[in-house]
């Protein structure tokens, strides 16, 4: 489907409990998303047209889909409970490690990393240590 990317997700360290106990999932993310990270339009099935995702949102601003948008998308569409345990102050909650294709997201620009098709994003909670 034009304009969509498949992003593979892995949740570990207890974080999977917030996502219906599914460790491995995947999502479809549009290539261009609202700059304000608005996720009002949920991803539809493959049978729908892609025109709705190319519509310019009311703010008129779009950006290439990045990790910051993905986090909002996960909170709004995949998270089953306790969003405060996943997101805090517009970003991933402290104590959750993010790996982009096996690389620390700090080395890839954190939230501003631009997503590519078939990227694997791993979210690991480090909060239950000891």
């Amino acid at each position: 489907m034009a304009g969509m990317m498949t992003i593979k997700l892995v949740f570990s360290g207890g974080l999977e409990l917030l996502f219906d106990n599914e460790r491995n999932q995947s999502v479809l993310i549009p290539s261009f998303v609202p700059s304000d990270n608005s996720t009002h339009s949920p991803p539809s099935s493959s049978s729908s047209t892609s025109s709705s995702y190319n519509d310019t949102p009311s703010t008129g601003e779009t950006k290439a889909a990045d990790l910051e948008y993905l986090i909002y998308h996960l909170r709004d569409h995949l998270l089953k409970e306790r969003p405060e345990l996943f997101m805090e102050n517009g970003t991933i909650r402290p104590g959750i490690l993010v790996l982009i294709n096996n690389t620390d997201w700090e080395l890839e620009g954190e939230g501003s990393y631009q997503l590519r098709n078939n990227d694997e994003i791993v979210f690991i909670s480090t909060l239950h240590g000891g």
Partner: protein
Amino acid sequence: MLSCGNPAVEEQALMPRRSKFGKSKDCVRCRLKPGNIAIRHAVYCKECFTPIVDMKFRKALEPSVNARAGTSKRPKLKASGNLCLGFSGGLGSSILLDMVHNTYFSNRPPLDDSGKPRGGINHPRNASVWPSCIVCYVEVCGAFPGMQDRTEAIRSVVERYPSFDFVPLRIEDAFDESWWTKVSGSNSTPQVWLELSKEGLITDGLHVASKVTGLTPAEAIRLYLSSLPTQTAISSALQNLTRVLILHTAHSGGSSHLLFGSSLTSLSISLLSAISQGGGYAIREELQEEWAPVAASGSKPDNVLRVIRPLRDVTAKECAVYAWWNNVFVIGRDKQRRAILGIAALTKNFVVGLEKDYPSTVSTIARTCEKLEPKDAPSGQCRLCKRPMQSAIQEWKGRISIRSYSDDKLAADLAHIPLPCRSNLDTSTPCQVPPLLALTDFLCYSCHTTLTSRSSRGVKQSAPGVSSITPLPIWVGDRGLHRDGLMDGGARRKIPEQEMLDTVANFLIDNQDDKE
């Protein structure tokens, strides 16, 4: 060089955010490959990362293996006893299990999810450091009704390491005379009860109960925890009970070393949390200690247990990445304990947040605490937490706190205090010197705070007509309380059974068929 913008020209002049790592994204160790992980401003590739963490683990552990340091720079490692690992199911514990097995028990590699050998690193030189290893796990579901028992799930994790023996404990063992008899050899230790609502824990509140109480260990621990004044006290009590249970189990089993999987992050959290609850005197023991139970004769036994935290230089982030890249299965800690509020949880939120933006600060907490040392020698071992006890605590408290409001000027200031909180303030009697013999003299300041701290919601009031008494862990009554002068030789008050039943009625598990 980074610089701020000019606010006179730009409205939104902000200093560019400094990157969390050095200038290069290449591995600082091999300098050949691009880095995969940033650890405190240093970048490592995947291949160099695991050996770095292994090295930190061994550097923290191996200097303490041999009973005597010796003169050789690389001595042959040989411990004087067995090895005991404290296991909670958490991230650090799981990595500890894996590292210890791979480094010192690699004759039989660990198993993967399908039951096949996972393959380990062969270190023939280290194969015989400890003759055997036990893994202790303390199940806490007995303290929380409705909580799931995870013992068998934990057993299945430990069984992946064929060289380890699993030793499950239960938190209520702390109130079980049969467990105490097994680890201490003592079969006449009385169950000690305490009236917590009385300030000062004076001796007339210390009752030695007879054996016909009918209270099971699970009922006893629930009563104990419910009697504690704050969530912080409950959290602290559980930690102390868990630690002392494992200490005694390891020592009685002939272990020379006890390892915990506390990461640098967890350690920094527990250090700050302990200090904020009055545990500063035992800060060194929080890091590392040599422990032995005090014998009935008052002397220390020959075999001393070295308690070490080999992951104390490894952050939680490093632990998580290590587990991910080495396929270490982490079952996780119990949810109920994670939900407990209090100073420990607040400290954890603070330190974890700090680690995100200022990763070196977490290391600074641990390094600063390593430099702390108490001024004077301890005056014995706390009966409750089994840690060194500061001397003259009551004198010190008397100097820093107001014990009564007999002064007229102070009494006049009472007007601003809400009525419900005034009832326990004694304004009529002058300050009394605490009795010479009180349980407080045998508790460290931290344990005393745990038992008597005041909640912001006011003093806990017991139901009218029912005495507010609570059992204490079985080891408090060890070595004969009358020997320490806490109890008059023969004048022990036996609590009437009906009074006891009235007190514990709400905590009895409804299981009439099993009662004798």
